[in-house]
């Protein structure tokens, strides 16, 4: 019960103040309460790859994505692959939309002429007969995708993020 209560308090503290109160930090063991001075910031415990592993784990949990990609499907008919893919599509799509806000880089109609919103080559890639100085626009071939926001759940230090899906043992 106290664990749930603690989780709630953290949730609301984050929701309303955007940060944990010193009391909550103490309860979570993030620093000792006796030290009135805040402890020096701990070295970042989260590695860049953790988010990727976390997302893979979520796509496996909700949509069985790893099972699908790691299986040898050469022997199965299109029909069978198709029906498996169709039933994975919904959950994977839902998970992507829930944990990431994804939007096109250019929200235009593919096949029409659009202005380039930026000169940043990471955002806009020019194809075809490209002059030395980047032009102001071109025919939109792919709208691109960009992540506007990430809502992945916070990782706890205890979590072993390298296990993407636990083994399942059934007890008869």
């Amino acid at each position, binding site marked *: 019960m106290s*664990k*749930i209560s603690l989780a709630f308090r953290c949730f609301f503290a984050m929701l309303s103040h955007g940060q944990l109160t010193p009391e909550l930090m103490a309860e979570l063991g993030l620093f000792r309460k006796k030290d009135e001075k805040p402890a020096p910031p701990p070295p970042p415990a989260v590695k860049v790859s953790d988010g990727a592993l976390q997302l893979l784990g979520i796509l496996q949990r909700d949509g069985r994505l790893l*099972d699908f990609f790691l*299986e040898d*499907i050469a022997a199965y008919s299109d029909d069978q692959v198709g*029906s*498996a893919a169709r039933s994975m599509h919904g959950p994977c799509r839902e998970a992507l939309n829930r944990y990431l806000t994804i939007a096109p880089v250019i929200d235009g109609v593919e096949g029409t002429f659009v202005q380039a919103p930026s000169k940043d080559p990471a955002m806009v890639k020019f194809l075809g007969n490209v002059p030395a100085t980047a032009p102001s626009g071109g025919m939109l071939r792919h709208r691109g995708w960009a992540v506007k926001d990430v809502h992945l759940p916070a990782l706890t230090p205890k979590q072993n993020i390298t296990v993407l899906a636990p083994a399942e043992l059934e*007890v008869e």
Partner: protein
Amino acid sequence: MGDARFVVGIDLGTTNSALAFADLSAGSVEAFAIPQEVNPGEIRAEALLPSFLYLLPERLVGELARKRGVESAGRLVASAKSWLSHAGVDRTEAILPIAAPEGVERISPVAASAEYLRHLRTAWDQAHPEAPLASQEVIVTVPASFDEVARELTLRAAAEAGLGEPTLLEEPQAAFYAWVGRHEDWRERVAVGDRILVVDIGGGTTDFTMIAVTEQNGALQLERVAVGEHILLGGDNIDLALARTVAARLGRVSAAQLQQLWANCRVAKEQLLDPEFTGDEVPVTILGRGTGLVGGTLKAALTRADVSQVMEGFFPLVESTDMPARQSRAAVQEIGLPYATDAAVTRHLAKFLSVNGLELPTHVLFNGGVLHAPAVRERILEALRHWGASARPLEGEDLMQAVARGAAYYGLARHGRGIRIRGGIPRSYYIGIQSSVPAVPGFAPPVRAFAVAQFGMEEGSDIRIPGREFSLVIGEPAEFQIFSSAVRKDDAPGTMIDDLTDELEELPSMEVHFPASSGTHERVRVSFETVVTETGLLQLWCVAPDGRRWKLEFNVRERIAA
């Protein structure tokens, strides 16, 4: 309660719970999003709290509990509310989950309900630390068909969860309050003489109520005139029937696969019942269990024909004189919920209208997830038309949250900020009296029923029952047989019924303990007094001529031995 800032409506549902609230100074009703663990380590605020409790390694309530329960059903408590109204078991004893494996603790239906309420309280208190739930005006809804014992047990669960003594409100009434709250011009939409049928089909239960529009001193009044029986039949039964239909085509299907199919069929059914959808079937693929996803996939589809066939079973077009098939009681029954034997909702509806001698409704208000589907709503209207009614639906309410919203609106109405439905208690109550006839071996002496509370007795009223005094022995517990009836509405207190028909249902007995004051075995003559509290709770008192009073309490445990 004097310093309450909010009125809070809690819909403690069989499969989902919800909470809505209104600031007493502002007056508009808002839904409260309920934070809960949805995946391990991930807390999210959702509109509904699934009423599921997972027991190990620590108690878990809500969405994650529901998910965990699919993987390990023996640790999951589900449908606690249906158990709360099941008179065949001791509802205060730790019996759930029925199929708990060795070493898994069991918990009572009351304690499980308390866990859901405690979760709601914790969530509320975190969001409103300055206005904790225990000091707000709380209204908890119950099915209209809940008997007095189930109502008391709901209150006990609320007390265990630290909510004090909330007010109880019947769910169909709450749904109607939600409609009234949404439509400020409701007085133009109904007229004197109208009869509004509330059809509430939730995940696990079906509930009917009739509300009449009357007039007093030129102002419109609403009066609840009848409530239906408790029917354990709902959307989950429909989805399971669909899953079984598909499973029959697939051949051997394991329990885990049936679970997946059940969930998939619910989604597929909603798609097929959507009027915008034009296809004839929706795939309900069961993915392979192991890492061999594609190889182990079972391909199946739910067709339009399947859905209409199953819907025909649940909502057949019956005659108004039809009655549901009678429950056949095997001598030895496995402990389980007393599910309705007859799955036909329309037949239960026909019975509700005929046994209560009701005129056909002029309007219908729908509530509950199943009635999202226009086809289902239309089928119920069609049945009513077939019986000669030209009933129009009352539209425009959120079917999943209406009960919680309506409960909050009722809270406002109690402060004079909206109309109240006049209802009173939904059943008549009787005390069984053994006839004094010469004993015949092998025959129990016939029991007569003495009316002590009449259907419709209003909240906040009390009555001394005339015409009968009892002689009781001080210092010994006295026990009374108690009966109730939702159908007999005209038995004024003091009426004696000689023949106990099916219309009377026996409740657990009631006891009264007389503390021995001075001498033992003093006899005292008492008469009965019935009180319906402001919160709608029925109380029976024994009153001595000198003014001493003793309250009768339900003996929930006793029934099981019988």
